[in-house]
């Protein structure tokens, strides 16, 4: 193999599994260390710079970082990254003095932002300090998009939502709320320099089964139901409720129904439980509240008596998997299952809807009805019109919308300055030794063996009484400290200097996870098998040195490195050093807003 080029900003970035997996590339280990030092405001600012909504995401993020967490490769469970983020937001105190404050000197450019969800808000936050006039259109009376309408307040309290949304709006967004955009053509005629469309995937899917029309009064689309609850239009529901669907919306629907006074709520899912789309922790929370989840139940018809919905009939299914992984659901032939109910909530997915975009203005759509959007620049086929969030490629989650917003803001800025959209700013990186003494480091390199700390919940009696009681209490400072100690500090990199190595094997012997090898070089597939423990996790790179004096090379399997620094402590010559790698994803504002200095 060729020697590893550690000057490539993405090499060490990839070693920081959580940051690499985060669409917004939030510097996770750094903010976890700040939390451990009780520097909550600093931890919050670091988050705010990269993901804009630490308090919201700390409660609702889909956490792509956690399955990626290296800890889960040496132990059962990853670090509770998401809930630590919430700690930063909960305990930050007053950070207003540290936020960029408008009014900013205007650059004369006007940008229309359609929709007020996380994508649009991110674009606004990134563009306002550069002097753009951001005009935000929202059909609802308040900003927040699906964060407000689809996430129940017992998961995301309204005051947390308002605080984070207003933090952006208060930077000087021009708001046109309660005003639906009905024609893109008309909007384009208003002379905006650029348009960003972040209208989400607002339309809940329906299921046309026998009885659907007749029972319409008691069958509700999940997303519409949640929105009506959020705006106070619905405050009660039938005694017995059946929820159809196995995603996070279904979990939110059933828990909301319980809080609206339903006596029995049943979730039914077509597929086997293992294939459910809902996040494992959402399923866990649902079951904690005593709601049964019946898998392999495919709805067949709505049963009516005297013109009124009385039950749903299901067919029992089983899954078969073809060799290519494709799943087929096959009826088992068992007698149908009839579940009596008064109301049905249908949460079987969402889709995009753009009835307000004329199809003859040069903005092309694919055969699924999705706009054709460039994956790098987020520009549509109509120059100057950009997409992001769920509106671009269908339903994802908040953190993706934020990442899209950052990229779209970069594009909009380039577009308005007349620069090619390919001229994108590079990430900023640094790599600094953490050595403080002979065997002292600026980080706590003693690997904690503690198991994941469960997040305390409000007791069920209180929680189920009201939509306003937050179900999760979050960590207090002590629990947060305990959980923070589990972080392996993957951003503190093991950096190897060939010319200093005397090949004493000290690092090989001390490495607790047998990651370090000195061996003859070979092509990657051969080399991976030649190591002390074969490197079979192909998603993780090998760090290969140039040839050493003996002709061998140093090969380190990055896979389960604990970043404990023992290689560097055992190295007599300093050939190994622990160096903190920072990676700042590029933002439109990166040259204007100073990067966080820890």
């Amino acid at each position: 193999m060729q020697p590893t080029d550690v000057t490539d900003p993405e090499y060490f970035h990839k070693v920081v599994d959580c940051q690499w997996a985060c669409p917004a590339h939030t510097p996770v280990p750094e903010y976890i260390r700040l939390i451990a030092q009780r520097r909550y405001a600093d931890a919050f600012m670091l988050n705010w710079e990269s993901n804009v909504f630490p308090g919201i995401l700390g409660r609702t993020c889909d956490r792509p970082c956690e399955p990626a967490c290296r800890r889960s490769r040496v132990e059962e469970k990853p670090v509770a990254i998401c809930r630590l983020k919430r700690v930063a937001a909960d305990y930050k105190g007053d950070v207003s003095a540290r936020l960029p404050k408008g009014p900013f000197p205007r650059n004369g450019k006007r940008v229309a932002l359609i929709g007020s969800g996380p994508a649009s808000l991110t674009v606004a936050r990134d563009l306002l300090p550069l002097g753009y006039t951001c005009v935000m259109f929202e059909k609802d009376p308040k900003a927040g998009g699906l964060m407000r309408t689809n996430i129940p307040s017992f998961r995301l309290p309204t005051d947390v939502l308002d605080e984070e949304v207003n933090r952006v709006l208060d930077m000087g967004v021009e708001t046109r709320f309660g005003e639906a955009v009905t024609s893109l053509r008309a909007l384009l005629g208003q002379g905006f320099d650029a348009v960003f469309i972040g209208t989400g995937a607002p339309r809940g899917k329906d299921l046309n089964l026998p009885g659907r029309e007749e029972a319409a009064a008691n069958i509700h689309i999940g997303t519409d139901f949640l929105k009506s609850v959020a705006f106070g239009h619905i405050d009660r529901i039938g005694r017995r409720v059946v929820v159809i669907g196995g995603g996070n919306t279904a979990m939110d629907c059933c828990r909301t129904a319980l809080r609206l006074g339903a006596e029995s709520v049943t979730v039914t899912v077509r597929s086997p439980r293992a294939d459910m789309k809902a996040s494992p922790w959402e399923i866990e929370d649902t079951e904690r509240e005593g709601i049964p989840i019946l898998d392999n139940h495919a709805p067949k018809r709505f049963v009516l008596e005297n013109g009124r919905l009385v039950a749903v009939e299901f067919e029992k299914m089983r899954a078969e998997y073809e060799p290519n992984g494709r799943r087929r659901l096959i009826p088992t032939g068992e007698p149908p299952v009839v579940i009596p109910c008064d109301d049905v909530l249908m949460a079987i997915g969402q889709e995009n809807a753009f009835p307000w975009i004329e199809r003859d203005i040069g903005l092309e759509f694919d055969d699924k009805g999705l706009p054709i959007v460039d994956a790098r620049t987020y520009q549509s086929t109509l120059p100057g019109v950009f997409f992001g969030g769920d509106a671009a490629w269908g339903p994802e989650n908040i953190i993706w919308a934020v990442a899209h917003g950052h990229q779209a803001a970069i594009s909009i800025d380039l577009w308005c300055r007349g620069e090619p959209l390919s001229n994108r700013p590079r990430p900023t990186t640094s790599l600094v030794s953490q050595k403080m003494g002979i065997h002292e480091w600026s980080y706590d390199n003693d690997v904690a063996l503690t198991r994941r700390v469960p997040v305390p919940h409000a007791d069920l009696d209180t929680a189920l009484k009201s939509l306003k009681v937050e179900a999760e209490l979050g960590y207090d400072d002590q629990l947060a400290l305990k959980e923070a100690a589990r972080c392996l500090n993957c951003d503190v990199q093991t950096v190897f200097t060939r010319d200093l190595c005397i090949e004493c094997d000290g690092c090989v012997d001390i490495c607790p996870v047998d990651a370090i090898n000195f061996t003859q070089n070979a092509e990657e597939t051969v080399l991976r098998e030649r190591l002390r423990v074969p490197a079979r996790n192909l998603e993780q790179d090998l760090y290969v040195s140039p040839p050493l004096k003996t002709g061998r090379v140093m090969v380190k399997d990055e896979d389960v490195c604990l970043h404990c620094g023992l290689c560097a402590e055992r190295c007599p010559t300093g050939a190994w050093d622990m160096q903190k790698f920072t990676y700042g994803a590029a933002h439109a504002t990166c040259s204007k807003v100073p990067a966080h200095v820890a």
Partner: protein
Amino acid sequence: MTHIAKPKFHHPALPVNALGLTRRDYEGVVSTLCAGCGHDSVTAAIIEACFELDLPAHRVAKVSGIGCSSKTTNYFLNRAHGFNSVHGRMPSVATGANLANRDLVYIGVSGDGDTASIGLGQFCHAIRRRLNMVYICENNGTYGLTKGQFSATNDKESKSRKGVDNLYQPIDLCTMAIELGAGFVARSFSGDKRQLVPLIKAAIRYRGFAFIDVISPCVTFNNHAASTKSYDWVREHNAALDSLDIVPARETIEADYAEGTSLDVDLHDGSRIRLHKLAADYDPTDRAAVLPELARRKARGEIPTGLLAIDLDQQEDLHDLIRSHPAPLNSLTQAELCPGSEALAKINAAHR
């Protein structure tokens, strides 16, 4: 030294041996030696050898004297028995322990000071007694714990770190051991575990006195350009005479080697060493020939390593020589220990 404990986490795919243990289960506490010390690699090699031989740690006794080397018994097999004895007196303690319980595996770790100076007599007589043990000398040519004076094994031409000449001739522990009739004599290098681990395994399996002289550089005092026990010097002058495979009992050897290039050595316990000759003219079983050959190679500036000498005919130990009871003393009952009044009367009668 390192201030933190080595994390308990290990690689999820770490192999396990017949006892269901990983290599990590054979570790001791974290070493307090200087970073880069060769001794830590010897420790790692002992761990690897015990792991590969499926040794239960509680059937092993670690013995040592005084010195950097002698500290290392604390760094491996923390579930084993251990005795850290007086300077140079490890062979006596090992002899006593072995007489009391012949069923344990005895691993002695010593250094060039502990063996070639204060303990030289003890070393010689342990060899003469054919004590069934593995005696590893971690040889760095210097007194590291007392800040780098020359030891008795330092080559005459090897200067101190500050350029001071060495006045005295070195003791070659291997040729001395061969001369004294040690059954198994090997030399290796801490930086070459591929050679060292099989040697330690063979030494553990060998019945009788098995000596391994491991050149183990002292990074602090004797790893400089004018030293003959530095990493670089040993790598440049290392001349491996052979390499070993250890074949457990009941397993047949499949590989086929050209005539005259390999040699099978049957061990007392039914296992077998397969020796691959790297130097065609060197035969470790020919005791009369090895000493002059080693002298010739030394004169050429080589450091001959590998299995230097092995006695195939007399794989017997102290217990065979003195015809002691075949069972460990702690397993004997009163009936076996007390011969009874009739026997006492007989003995008394012999003195009348």
